[in-house]
């Protein structure tokens, strides 16, 4: 069933990139360990590209893409894929909308034909749209309205950006979702879904030539849409003050601290700052060896858990996030003070060579482990290419990580752990009066 292969994959693999005549980009990452492929189409359009009074539109369209075309009946798309033994899904982020299938390699051509078909031939009835809108209202309830932590994150996100559309939730505000119409979806679709706004990513048991032939025969037949505009989004003004948010909810068990900083991303950072931020946040926030965990959980014993990370994949900016869950008898003020002590220390004194080398090993190993999973491998390329990064940047990442110095990390901490560009969130159990009541409520069974 699985063909062993002499050449196989290595983490240093070279993906092959080409462009179709209509402007569609393509990248092929051969992985011959199993006779399967991962097929993805990445549209360079996401939630942040929709009109600000129609939050959730890109995600709404993603759902509707599973409705009908001339060739594919309503709801048949997933059934066809699954009957062939495939798996499929789609996701929407602020910057991209992505459709993907994993399937036996002999069905790759059909997947491309179907994906190409729905790139331009979608048709929607009012009834389909109305039903799917209810599905999304339920999705929002599951993901956000039922979860205090998710609601705090949503509110913090809305406060972090002063002007940029990243402030709007990808799924949309509830009142916006309720207003989304068939016309909204179709006009967005016609404006942004075109081969010259898409990237084909195929990883698996195929050669670049095979993929090129199949792509020319499917996606290659769709004309480019010259009306596709480059991304034009509101820019952030200078951030002058830190913001603070408190959410109280009776379904909160332990008081929780969160902090977000607006930072550059890999796509926007100058001279390796994003690499330094990646390493900084491994050292500060990654698991039980992170400085946050060591200080808050092991030494000060103010928190049950503490962690943080850098998310540098955005088109317009990146973000540093950290969180800590207070122990039942500890005040969030103590937790926040301990977090700030850790951050002040790293800003002042930087990190050690030992910490830096450990963090480098950890990130390079993560890259290798990621290479073992075909779907993640494909995603690695899609994510980076869709925000304008290059194959050589992607494949040179482990080597570039190795070059970062302790000075780079200290400089990144000094520049980017800037409280004025941050939001601090407190999630508290609901209380009727004194804040002293809050911790005890938590420990009750």
């Amino acid at each position, binding site marked *: 069933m699985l063909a062993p292969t002499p050449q196989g994959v290595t983490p240093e693999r070279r993906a092959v990139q080409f462009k179709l005549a209509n402007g569609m980009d393509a990248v092929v990452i051969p992985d011959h360990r199993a006779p399967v492929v991962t097929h993805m189409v990445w549209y360079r359009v996401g939630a942040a590209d929709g009109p600000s009074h129609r939050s959730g539109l890109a995600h709404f369209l993603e759902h509707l893409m599973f409705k009908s075309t001339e060739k594919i009946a309503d709801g048949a798309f*997933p059934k066809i894929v699954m009957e062939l033994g495939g798996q499929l899904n789609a996701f929407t982020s602020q910057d991209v909308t992505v459709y993907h299938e994993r399937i036996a390699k002999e069905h790759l051509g059909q997947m491309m034909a179907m994906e190409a078909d729905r790139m331009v031939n979608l048709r929607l009835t009012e009834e389909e749209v109305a039903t799917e809108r209810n599905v999304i209202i339920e999705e929002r309830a599951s993901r956000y309205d*039922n979860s205090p932590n998710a609601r705090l994150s949503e509110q913090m996100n809305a406060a972090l950006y002063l002007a940029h559309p990243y402030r709007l939730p990808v799924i949309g505000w509830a009142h916006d979702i309720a207003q989304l119409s068939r016309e909204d979806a179709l006009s967005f679709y016609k404006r942004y879904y075109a081969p010259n706004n898409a990237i084909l990513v195929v990883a698996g048991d195929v050669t670049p030539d095979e993929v090129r032939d199949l792509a020319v025969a499917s996606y290659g037949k769709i004309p480019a849409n010259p009306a596709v505009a480059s991304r034009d989004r509101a820019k952030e003004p200078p951030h002058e003050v830190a913001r603070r948010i408190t959410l109280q909810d009776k379904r909160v068990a332990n008081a929780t601290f969160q902090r977000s900083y607006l930072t550059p991303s890999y796509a926007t950072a100058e001279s390796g700052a994003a690499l330094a931020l990646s390493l900084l946040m491994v050292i500060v926030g990654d698991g039980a060896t992170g400085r946050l965990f060591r200080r808050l959980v092991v030494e000060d014993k103010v928190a049950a858990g503490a962690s943080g990370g850098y998310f540098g994949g955005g088109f317009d900016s990146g973000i540093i996030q950290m969180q800590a869950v207070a122990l039942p008898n500890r005040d969030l003020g103590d937790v926040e003070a301990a977090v700030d002590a850790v951050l002040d220390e790293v800003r002042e004194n930087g990190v050690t060579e030992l910490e830096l080398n450990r963090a480098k090993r950890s990130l390079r190993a993560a890259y290798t482990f990621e290479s073992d999973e075909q779907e993640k491998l494909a995603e690695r390329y899609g994510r980076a290419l869709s925000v304008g990064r290059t194959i050589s940047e992607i494949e040179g990442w482990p080597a570039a990580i190795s070059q970062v110095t302790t000075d780079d990390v200290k400089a990144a901490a000094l520049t980017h752990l800037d409280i004025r560009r941050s939001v601090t969130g407190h999630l508290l159990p609901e209380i009727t009066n004194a804040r002293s009541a809050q911790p005890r409520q938590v420990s009750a069974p």
Partner: protein
Amino acid sequence: MKIETIKSPGGIDAWLVEEHAVPMLALRFAFDGGSMQDPVGKEGTANFLAQMLLEGAGELTATAFQDRVKDLALRIGFRSGRDALFGNIEVLTESRAEAASLLRLALMEPRFDADAVARTRQRLKVGIARAAREPDKVAAAEWDAVAFAGHPYARPIVGTLASVDAVMADDMEFYRRRAFCKRTLKVTAVGDVTAEELGQLLDEVFGDLPDDTQLPVPGAVGVLPAGRRSIIEMDVPQSVAVFGMTALARKDPDYMASVVLNFIGGGGSFSSRLMEEVRVKRGLTYGVSTSIVPMRCASILKGSVATRNHLIGTSLEVIGAEFAKMAAGDIGEDEVAKAKSAIIGSYPLAFDASAKIANQLLGLRLDGFGPEYVANRNAMVAAVTLADVKRVAAELLRPENLIVTVVGKPSLGAEHVAPQASASAA
């Protein structure tokens, strides 16, 4: 893919898939036991122990141990299931020897230092307190409590706030000595390692374990209390329902027919009947799905759905009606053919990464199958007939078999309404 069954010089056997394309090894193993063997009043012991295996061993304190894990860039973890305690490790080839020593230390000489125990206890209790306020977790726990009343499966794997407080270092060490032995150890390995190298690694890691600790064999669950519906009130906009019934044992001759049936009903994602009826046609939920969970002492078919409070009753009615139709024989030849095609065609997708392969193979070992299962499995699916599926549907999907738990503020007839307090104390 070639599965080798190897035996180490010291006599420990393992399944191995050599794959040298990526310079890493994925190792999976399990010991019989799991949370089912937790002492009464000390529920959560196995889960607690699994956490403590990463909190210091031998000369290494928790901090030193975790630094070592990071230095070696290991992915290592332990967790308790109902029937077994699992370990997993992913390691780059360059660090394999050091990783083996560390793993041996974790399994054979965990320290249980007081501060590490206290820290871990706090973390576990935070998780328990949080889960007690999440409707999906509460619904799932309540379902187990109702369905398995009187059997250890009724108890939460993570324990309760009170039971975790009762678990001491001695309890975990006692559990470790009772459950970790060669007789019940099952190992699978995938990656950049030869049979000889793996044999050495197995002896180093597991060679000092006792042969057999005579862990008692658990009793079967017996008949589930069918037809129960319980509702726990929680002030959330969307109710979560967990529903399920008894299913066929893993080695039942009709097991594959039940897999096909489940795929048609609720297992087949976007192509399942429940997804079609509840989500696509009616917009009542973001997701509804079912799965078959074969365990050592019971096998169940279980699903969940989340719908806003005022409509959850409709979702449950639609699900019940769909089960009833299938039980009555309303299943098409075409549906069975498509489900079989999907189940057969998607099998290779479970084998496209080292860790996934190792997981698949460990599952087969725990279920008592040999490596030939992988080659034979699709033929077993292909042999399932419409009559088989209808027979199994008539047996399993009778509406009166259903056990349903709902958490939220649902608008539906309430046979049994418990206040929220009892949910968090459960």
